[in-house]
C-alpha cells in the first residue's frame, strides 16, 4: 500500500547564505493494506515532514526538495498529487484543518469537492458524525468545539472521503485526558475497520497500539518491528535509547521538586477572596473562589476542561478582572494596575509559544520584557538566559523560524530572564518531547531552590504529583485542596465535555 524507497527531504534555507535544512535521509518503508505503523521521534525529528510527504502535500505546498520514491497504492506521490480518497492526513494541530462554519458542512465539504451525489453525501455525513460521536454537535461551529471534538471532526471529515491510508500526526498531542480517550477510541475503530494507519507519536503507550513501530532520528527511519521487539531493552526503541535521544523523559529520572525553602503561609504570594467571573454573554465560569497561595509554594491546579482553571489564573496577573471578589498580589490589592505593571511580580507562561514570538532575533525577543520592565543588569540577565536554555546557536535567528521545542525554550528564557517572584504556567508540558520536558523540570527545580512561587495549570498528573499542594477545580468551584497524595489518590472520573 505504502512504498518509500530512499526518500530524502530538505527544506530551503531559512535565510540567505544558509544551507538547506536536511530533514529526512534515505528513508525506506513498505506497508501492506490494513497495516498500522507508529513512528516515534523527538520534537523536530521530521515526523510532520514525513506525514506531509506521505499525504502528497510536501514538497508541493511546503517548499523544499524530495528525492527517492514514494508510492501509495502504486501512485507516484512525488510526481502528481494523490487522490484525496487515496490518503487523508490528520494535522498535528487539527483545529487549523477545519475551515467551514458548521460541523456537518465540514464533513460534507470534501465530498462536494469529490463530486459525490448529494443523497450519498447525506448518508456519509450522517454515518461519519455517528461514527465519531458528533451527531449532537452537528450544527455547532468547529472552532467552538473542545480539542478532542475538533480532532474527531477532522478525522470524521477525512474518513467520510473513504481514504485507504490515514496518516495521523500526533493524534493525542495537546489533548486533556477526556479528549485523549475520545480520539483513541476513534483511531482504534479505524484500525479495526482495516484502514492502513501511519501514526506519529512521542508516547510509548500510543505506539504500542500499532502493529509495527519505527524510530525517526537524525533523519533516518529504522526498520519497522513489532512493539514487543522494538521496545525490548535490547531493541532499537528501548526506554534507555528513547531517553538518550530526547524522545521521552521517564518520571523515574525527573529531578526532585521538593522545596528547599519552606513556603511562607503567613505571606501569601497570591490571594483571592470571593472571586466570581463570567465571560460576557456566557454562563458563570468562576463561582466564588477563595484561595491563598503561600510564598514559595508549588501549586498545581487540576480539573476537567471548562472547569475554570485558565480563567482563574488569568486573574492572578490582571489579564482578567473579577466581577466580584478581590485579588491580592504580595498582599496588595491589584486594583486597576495594568498587567504590564504586574509583570514585575507575576510571570505567565502561555500555551502555544509560536503565537507570541515576534522579534527579529531570539536575543531581542528575550530583551523585550527586560526593557519593558526597565530591569537592571539587562545584558547579564540576557546572557544568562541564552546560556541556561542552550539558545546560543540560534540567538541571532528569528524565533518564528525555530522548531516547537526551541520556541518553547525561548518563551522559558524570556520568563527566566525577567525572574519574577511568582510564575504561572498554563499547561507547560503540552507538546514537549523528553528533552523539552527535562529542560522544563530542571528549570522548575532551580526556581524552587530560590523560593519562587510556582502555579501550574496542568493535565499532567505526574507533574501535579510533584507539587506541594494540588487544587482541583470543577464547574467554577474548588472541589478538593490538599497534598497531592490526598487530592490525586481518589481517581475522580473527569466530567464529560459539554
Amino acid at each position: 500500500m505504502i512504498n518509500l524507497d530512499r526518500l530524502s527531504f530538505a527544506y530551503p534555507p531559512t535565510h540567505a547564505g544558509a544551507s538547506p535544512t536536511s530533514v529526512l535521509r534515505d528513508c525506506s518503508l513498505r506497508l501492506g493494506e490494513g497495516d498500522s505503523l507508529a513512528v516515534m521521534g523527538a520534537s523536530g525529528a521530521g515526523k510532520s515532514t514525513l506525514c506531509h510527504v506521505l499525504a502528497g502535500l510536501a514538497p508541493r505546498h511546503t517548499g523544499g526538495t524530495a528525492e527517492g520514491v514514494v508510492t501509495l497504492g502504486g501512485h507516484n506521490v512525488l510526481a502528481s498529487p494523490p487522490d484525496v480518497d487515496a490518503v487523508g492526513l490528520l494535522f498535528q494541530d487539527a483545529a487549523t484543518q477545519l475551515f467551514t462554519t458548521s460541523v456537518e458542512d465540514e464533513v460534507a465539504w470534501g465530498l462536494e469537492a469529490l463530486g459525490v451525489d448529494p443523497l450519498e453525501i447525506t448518508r456519509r455525513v450522517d454515518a461519519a458524525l455517528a461514527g465519531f460521536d458528533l451527531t449532537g454537535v452537528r450544527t455547532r461551529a468547529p472552532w467552538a468545539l473542545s480539542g478532542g471534538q475538533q480532532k474527531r471532526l477532522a478525522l470524521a471529515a477525512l474518513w467520510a472521503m473513504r481514504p485507504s491510508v490515514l496518516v495521523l500526526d500526533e493524534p493525542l498531542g495537546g489533548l486533556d485526558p477526556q479528549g485523549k480517550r475520545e480520539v483513541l477510541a476513534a483511531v482504534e475503530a479505524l484500525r479495526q475497520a482495516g484502514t492502513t494507519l501511519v501514526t506519529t507519536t512521542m508516547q510509548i503507550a500510543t505506539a504500542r497500539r500499532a502493529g509495527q513501530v519505527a524510530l525517526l532520528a537524525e533523519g533516518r527511519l529504522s526498520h519497522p518491528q513489532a512493539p514487543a521487539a522494538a521496545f525490548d531493552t535490547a531493541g532499537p526503541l528501548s526506554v534507555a535509547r528513547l531517553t538518550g535521544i530526547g524522545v521521552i523523559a521517564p518520571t523515574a529520572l525527573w529531578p526532585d521538586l521538593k522545596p528547599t525553602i519552606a513556603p511562607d503561609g503567613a505571606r501569601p504570594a497570591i490571594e483571592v477572596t470571593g472571586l466570581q467571573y463570567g465571560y460576557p454573554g456566557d454562563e458563570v465560569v468562576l463561582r466564588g473562589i477563595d484561595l491563598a497561595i503561600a510564598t514559595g509554594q508549588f501549586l498545581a491546579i487540576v480539573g476537567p476542561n471548562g472547569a475554570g482553571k485558565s480563567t482563574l489564573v488569568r486573574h492572578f496577573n490582571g489579564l482578567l478582572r473579577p466581577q466580584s471578589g478581590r485579588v491580592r498580589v504580595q498582599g496588595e490589592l491589584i486594583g486597576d494596575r495594568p498587567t504590564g505593571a504586574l509583570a514585575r511580580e507575576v510571570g505567565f507562561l502561555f500555551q502555544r509559544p509560536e503565537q507570541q514570538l515576534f522579534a527579529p532575533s531570539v536575543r531581542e525577543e528575550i530583551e523585550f520584557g527586560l526593557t519593558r520592565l526597565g530591569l537592571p543588569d539587562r545584558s547579564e540577565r540576557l546572557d544568562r538566559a541564552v546560556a541556561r536554555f542552550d539558545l546560543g546557536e540560534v540567538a541571532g535567528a528569528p524565533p518564528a523560524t525555530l522548531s516547537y521545542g526551541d520556541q518553547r525554550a525561548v518563551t522559558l528564557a524570556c520568563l527566566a530572564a525577567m525572574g519574577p517572584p511568582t510564575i504561572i504556567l498554563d499547561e507547560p508540558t503540552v507538546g514537549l518531547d523528553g528533552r523539552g520536558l527535562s529542560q522544563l523540570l530542571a528549570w522548575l527545580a532551580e526556581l524552587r531552590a530560590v523560593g519562587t512561587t510556582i502555579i501550574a495549570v496542568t493535565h499532567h498528573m505526574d507533574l501535579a504529583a510533584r507539587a506541594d499542594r494540588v487544587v482541583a477545580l470543577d464547574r467554577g468551584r474548588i472541589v478538593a485542596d490538599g497534598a497531592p497524595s490526598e487530592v490525586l489518590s481518589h481517581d475522580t472520573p473527569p466530567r464529560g465535555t459539554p
Partner: protein
Amino acid sequence: MTTVFDTYIPGRSLLHRLDPRAKIWAMLLCLALTFLLPGLTAQALVLMVVHILLLRSGIPGAVLGRLWRQLAVLLLLVLILQPFFTPSGRLLVALGPLRLTVGGIAHAAALVLRAANLAFITCTLLFTTSQPALVQGLMRLGLPYTWGLTVSLALRFLPAIGDLFNKVRDAQAARGWVAEGNLIKRFRETIPILVAVLIGTLRMTDQLTLALAARGIESTRPRSTWRELRMTGQDWWFVVGVTVGVAALVVAIALSPSVIPNG
C-alpha cells in the same frame, strides 16, 4: 473564542426556514423602502415591526440589545451633529453660526432611525441565515464558487485573527507591555503585537493552503452541492407578499407626499 462575525442564531421560525434568496430579495426591498419612507413616525413604525419580527423568530432580546449598543456611538454622533447641518423650522438656540432648530432635530432623529433600520433589516437576514446557506444563496444568485468560498473563509477566519490579536496582546502584557501616552506613542507600542499577529496570520494562511489541498480543492472532478437550495411554495408566497406590500407602500407614499410632515 470570539465569534463577532458569526451572527447566525439557529432556530426553526418561518424566517429561518425561508430560502436565503427569498430573504436576500426581501432585505433589498425593505432597505430600499427605508430610503423612500419619509419622516420620523414611519421609520419608527418599521423599526418596531422589525423588532417584533425578530423577537417572534426567536432572536433573544439580549442580542438585539447588543446590536443597539454597538450602534450607539454612531447613532449618538448623528443625533448630536446632524441638527446643525440641516437647520429648519423654529430656532431654539443660536451659537454663532451654529443654529439648533426643531426641524433640524426632527431630521436628525429620522436619520438615526433610518440608520438603525438599515442595520436591523440587514441583521434580520444574518441572524436567521447560516453562513453556508448565505454563501450558497449568493452563489445561486450568480456569484462564482470561489467568491462564495472567499466570503465563507473570511467569515471563518476574521474572528480567528481577532482572537489571535487578543492572545498576543495578553502574552506581551504579561512581559511588561503597557499601552500608554498619546495616540502616536500608543500606535508605536502596538507594533510588536501587530508583528506577532501578522506572523500568526501568515502561518494560518499556510495551514489553510494545506488544509484545502488535503480536502481536495484541486480535485478535477466537477463539484457537487450537498444542500441544493429549492424555492418552495412558501418561499414564493413570501417573495410575492413582500414585493406587493412594499410596492403598495411606495405607491401610497408617492400619492400622498405630505402624509407625514417634517421628512
